[in-house]
């Protein structure tokens, strides 16, 4: 599957905004909503990307190039893990855990939105290296 890279940047910007609001308001429900977005994104149905397709893309026209959807989907999965850790922090009222995990996800989303750098994708080989060889 191919995706519009501008939609990915748009989704990253929306994620950055939501996670920044989570930090400022300390609202765990908002993080839960973002976790749901990450889960949908990992399944290839990011609500932010859909919003881009529906409302923003018609104004911009077709993309100059498309990209493989697997890297961003993997990165959404990494984002989900951090969001879940953050939620555990909120539930356990462990502020450092809640803020730290949210900040990590925010950093990745910000790097993607501002620089087009996919931190979640970079995790792939590092995670793979740590796991024992399967073949």
């Amino acid at each position, binding site marked *: 599957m191919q995706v519009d890279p501008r939609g990915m940047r748009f989704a990253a910007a929306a994620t950055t905004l939501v996670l*920044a609001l989570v*930090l*400022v*308001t*300390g609202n765990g429900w908002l993080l839960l909503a973002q976790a749901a977005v990450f889960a949908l994104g990992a399944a290839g149905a990011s609500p932010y990307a859909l919003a881009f397709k529906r409302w923003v893309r018609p104004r911009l026209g077709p993309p100059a190039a498309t*990209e*493989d959807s*697997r*890297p*961003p989907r*993997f*990165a959404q999965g990494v984002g989900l893990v951090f969001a879940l850790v953050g939620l555990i922090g909120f539930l356990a009222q462990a*502020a450092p855990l809640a*803020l*730290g995990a*949210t*900040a990590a996800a*925010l*950093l990745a989303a*910000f*790097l993607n939105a*501002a*620089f087009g*750098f*996919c931190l979640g*994708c*970079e995790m*792939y*080989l*590092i995670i*793979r*290296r740590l796991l024992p*060889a399967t*073949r």
Partner: protein
Amino acid sequence: MAGWAVLCVTLAVGVAAGVIMRRRDGVARDVRGDMDTVAAGDLGAELGERATLVQFSTAFCQPCRATRRVLAEVTAMVDGVRHIEIDAESRLDLVRRLDVMRTPTVLVLDSGGRIVKRASGHPRKADVIAALGFTVSHEPDAT
């Protein structure tokens, strides 16, 4: 408020990391000291006559496709240079041995398979050509 402080620190770290990454991404660095050697057997393909561009890729790598294009263009331009792409996931032995942390990572090998330059991230075409020029010109004094 702790939340505001964490937000500001995170964004500051993000800007700094982004700027550093922009500057360093894809820049070919000299490999100093004991040069590791990669044999044709390691790669599962013959080395180029004068130089070889080894690209490590994964399925979850956005800039790998653009890197592949750049290296293919350079290979077509310069005689005696081969481009070999390696799926990092199926060659974790090589990934660990050569300490590849990111994809794409590009190694520039001389005719004997010595790693002369390496770059991680999407390299610019001019940089690849310069790295090849360096590699080929440093050939004769190798022992």
